[in-house]
């Protein structure tokens, strides 16, 4: 696969999938459409060389699907069975949204995403904040791991058996670190011109390609099929 998808297409995919997961499939045809819709992001993951996660999703989804179908049809009873099937149906129901989200998050660069938002005329303030959110997830992880190491050395991972302290010991150093980093980050960003009156530009040039139009058509039809079956029949 040579051409990458436009982030706007990806957002549209999420939109459709999150709408469809809330409508349950009732006929074999609808099930087929639903499964097809789930396969698309898995295939896309493969084209982006995320083999491991694609494989994992595929296994999980298929097994949930199989368990769901076989058990439901056999009319099985029993608590454990019910529990298992309950989980499986939740997975089958919401997994497509999870896979699509995972695909989008894993394969979209922040700059692309921000640039897409600019194209869709979000104000600069929101795109800046969103870029910071994305940048801070890994920072929070880094800081948290360091804090947890420090807690291990002090032997206070369990907060001396007190849940409030458990939260406090994690949260307080984390907040101090994040506030500090934020102050320094703001200073560094402002000296590089953030917050000027001029409209920001972006080097990520977005253009809808043929693959984008294909997927948009595909997902629109999926949505239409579900809406028609649910409300007009």
């Amino acid at each position, binding site marked *: 696969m040579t051409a990458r998808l436009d982030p706007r297409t990806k*957002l549209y995919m*999420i*939109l459709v*999938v*999150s*709408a469809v*997961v*809330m*409508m*349950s499939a009732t006929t074999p045809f609808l099930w087929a459409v639903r499964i097809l819709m789930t396969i698309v992001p898995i295939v896309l993951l493969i084209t982006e060389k995320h083999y491991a996660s694609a494989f994992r999703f595929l296994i999980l989804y298929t097994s949930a699907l199989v368990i769901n179908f076989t*058990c*439901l*049809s056999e*009319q*099985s*009873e029993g608590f454990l069975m*019910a529990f298992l*099937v*309950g989980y499986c*149906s939740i997975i089958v*129901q*919401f997994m497509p*949204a*999870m896979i*699509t*989200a*995972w695909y*989008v*998050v894993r394969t979209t660069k922040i700059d692309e995403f921000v640039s897409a938002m600019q194209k869709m005329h979000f104000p600069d*303030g*929101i795109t*800046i*904040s*969103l*870029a*910071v*959110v994305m*940048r*801070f*997830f890994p920072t*929070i992880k880094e800081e948290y791991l360091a804090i947890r190491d420090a807690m291990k050395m002090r032997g206070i991972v369990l907060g001396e058996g007190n849940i409030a302290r458990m*939260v*406090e010991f994690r*949260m*307080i150093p*984390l*907040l*101090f670190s*994040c*506030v500090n*980093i*934020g102050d320094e*980050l*703001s200073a560094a*960003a*402002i000296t590089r011109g*953030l*917050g000027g009156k001029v409209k920001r530009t972006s080097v990520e040039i977005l253009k809808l390609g043929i693959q984008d139009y294909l997927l948009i058509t595909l997902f629109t039809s999926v949505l239409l099929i579900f809406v028609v079956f649910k409300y007009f029949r």
Partner: protein
Amino acid sequence: MNKKRLQAKDFITIGIFTALLFVVEFACGMLGFLHPYIVASYVIMIPIVGSIPMMLFYTKIEKFGMLTIMSVLLAIIMFVMGMGYLGAPLIILAGIVADLIAKSGNYKSSKKTVISYGVFCLWICANYFPVIVTADSYRKDLLDGGYSAEYCDNLFRAINYKTIGVLLVLCFVFGCIGAFIGKAVVKKHFEKAGIV
């Protein structure tokens, strides 16, 4: 810089605290995989744990828009993470109302801050929207599949159309309680350390 409009620095601060709040939500969300009842207890956990960063956040910017933007960001992240868009109007509405309440107290009045945070916490209920909408048809599926009505009721007792009102109220109440706890923590640590 006593300008009333949000500056670049404020946007960065908003981003940081949104990330922190979302991490709190995510950490609590992980527990939700264990049992459906834990999912229902989000309304207690998230307002209280989240209050610590949020009360610090309230002291950091004190300009209109801080909560509105945060709610928009939360809605976007929820959407991208595949948690649907049905909750978006609720999240953003909660953000705007909370922002207005806090503004009416000039972001200084502690009573207003408490109420504002309580209102802001309503966003948590947006987590349940997809489940509620799906639940009915899903329940039918299960019943058709031969499950006892008892089990199905058990699964959805905590979360359905009727209880969402209760959950909203709980969010608000625990938001207000959380606000007091958060304020105490901010006082204990951040004011004492001279950060605020």
